[in-house]
């Protein structure tokens, strides 16, 4: 509770100084990033010293668009002759745009391997700018706090249909799925269903294609369960569950104990100077520290485990 509250108040301060950050005790993954601040600010002043100019088109996934928008604004303020033109469109759009050269950066919340031919993937450069954790969420009235992976699997494949089967008060479980083909659903199914998908005859009560409608419906519907990126967690509206006793928190994702997470990718193809400078800026601690965490994401550098395109997890 206090964690989410402080994050919420933090968002209003997004872009605040690292000092304020440390004061709030919000450095998600053990605070390792704040120690690098000095080396980093010199890196960013280096890039601005070259007087960059040009336009970078960046299209794709909407899930971390606010983060990129915030970073782009700072980057533009530091480099007045640079424009980062951001558009949405979804991961599919972002990947096709960068493949076809229509955008210099394509944002995606899935690996390019899932959407493009191997030949096209080979030409792309993958920049994993941050990690997003996702956790199961339920309506606030559900009196279950913890589910095992097997129980989750049962619920999302239609085997378990009543809350009493998992230790709660009897009541129908209303499963709200995400749209098939979305990055969020792919991540959840890979981690929870072990790559299987729900049987064809199992129909959830809704299959939403946006986190917004999920929040609205979870909040209103008795007995509802779904899953959502940490960045949208809001204790005032719904309840996040533990999985196998592990709390859905950034530090648990970092140390590998919480399994449902994905990279947010910014793909480039033969990046020019400005594009590369912006990518470098995204990876710098200026963004990776305060901004990434402020928006509810996890800095990629803090991860102690890593995932490849086929979903295999290894220690970093």
């Amino acid at each position, binding site marked *: 509770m206090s964690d989410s509250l402080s994050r919420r108040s933090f968002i209003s301060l997004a872009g605040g100084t690292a000092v304020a950050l440390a004061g709030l005790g919000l450095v998600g993954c053990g605070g390792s990033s704040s120690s690098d601040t000095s080396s980093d600010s010199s890196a960013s002043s280096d890039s601005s010293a070259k007087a960059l100019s040009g336009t970078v088109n960046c299209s794709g996934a909407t899930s971390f668009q606010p983060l990129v928008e915030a970073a782009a604004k700072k980057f533009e303020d530091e480099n007045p002759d640079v424009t980062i033109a951001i558009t949405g469109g979804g991961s599919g759009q972002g990947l096709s745009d960068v493949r076809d050269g229509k955008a210099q950066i394509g944002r995606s919340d899935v690996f390019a391997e899932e959407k493009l031919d191997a030949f096209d993937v080979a030409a792309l450069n993958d920049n994993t700018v941050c990690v997003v954790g996702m956790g199961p969420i339920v309506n606030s009235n559900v009196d279950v706090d913890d589910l095992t992976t097997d129980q989750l699997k049962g619920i999302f494949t239609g085997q378990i249909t009543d809350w009493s089967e998992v230790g709660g008060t009897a009541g129908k479980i209303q499963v709200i*799925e995400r749209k098939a083909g979305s990055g969020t659903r792919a991540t959840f199914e890979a981690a929870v269903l072990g790559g299987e998908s729900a049987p*064809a005859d199992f129909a959830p009560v809704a299959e939403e294609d946006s986190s917004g409608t999920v929040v609205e419906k979870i909040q209103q519907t008795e007995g509802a369960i779904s899953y959502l990126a940490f960045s949208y967690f809001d204790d005032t509206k719904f309840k996040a569950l533990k999985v196998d006793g592990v709390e859905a928190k950034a530090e648990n994702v970092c140390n590998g104990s919480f399994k449902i997470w994905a990279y947010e990718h910014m793909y480039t193809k033969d990046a020019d100077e400005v594009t590369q400078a912006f990518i470098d800026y995204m990876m710098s601690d200026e963004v990776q520290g305060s901004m990434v965490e402020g928006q509810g994401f996890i800095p990629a550098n803090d991860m102690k485990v890593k995932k490849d395109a086929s979903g295999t997890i290894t220690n970093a």
Partner: protein
Amino acid sequence: MAKRLMPKKQLEGVGLILTGACVLLVALVVITLIFMVAQQGLSAFFVDGINFFSFISGTSWVPSDGVYGALPLIVTSFGVMLLATLFTLPIALGSAIFVVEVQPGFGRRIFQPLVELLMGIPSVVYGLIGLTVVNAAMRAIFGEEAGTGAGILSGGIVLAVMILPTVTTLSIDGLAAVPNEYREGSYALGCTRWQTVWHVVLKSAMPSLMTAVILGMTRAFGEALAVQMVIGGVEKVMPAGLLSPAATLTTALTSGFSNATTGSVQYHALWALGLLLMAMSLVFILIIHLIGAKGAKNRG
């Protein structure tokens, strides 16, 4: 005199060319649109080899797994459209009759401008209200059966409100166009107002009322964002009833495009849905023309 005539003729020519060019431009854009949508949509069948009949009759739509059966989407699209029409028709017709026959002054000066205002409310705003109010109402009325409250019924209700102004305004115009002699004749025979409306006015306004309804249906069929917020979006199975969450052709498009890469089979399949939508709106236009032709014939 002859000298004056030449520039006049030229002037006439300039006018004709200028205005004709505008018409031509519009026609060209429409033709380009039809051509491009058809080209992209048809390549799903001719390039990617999706079977047209299994596309139309397949009962599951999971583009990310290469399952392209658009029947659930087609059925839902027609379902919400018919529901919306069913809800809207009595209300629109009733208020049109009131406005034209009972209180023309109030109707023209106050009611009609207000209804036109309803037409100006953006569809995203209707979606917002639907998400907060209509879905909650569905759950309050039907309980657990309604799931999250999202479903065909919710979609139908939101669309009904959205097409109400269109159908009402056009119905008012249709009723107002009925010549007054008809009414006077009926009153002269001693008929009451209701009898006059029911037996005379409605009958002679029938073609324009049908046009009003079909234009409303066209709008309901093509609406995307408002429906998407309230309908639940389940594409992989046939809807089982009015409370089932489902997806329409339009909502499958808005949600599908974000996950498809250009040029992929999935992308073309989405265009094929767009082609279906376009074909349907052409059919609606055709129906309106047929009604118009029949109405003209009846009038002699």
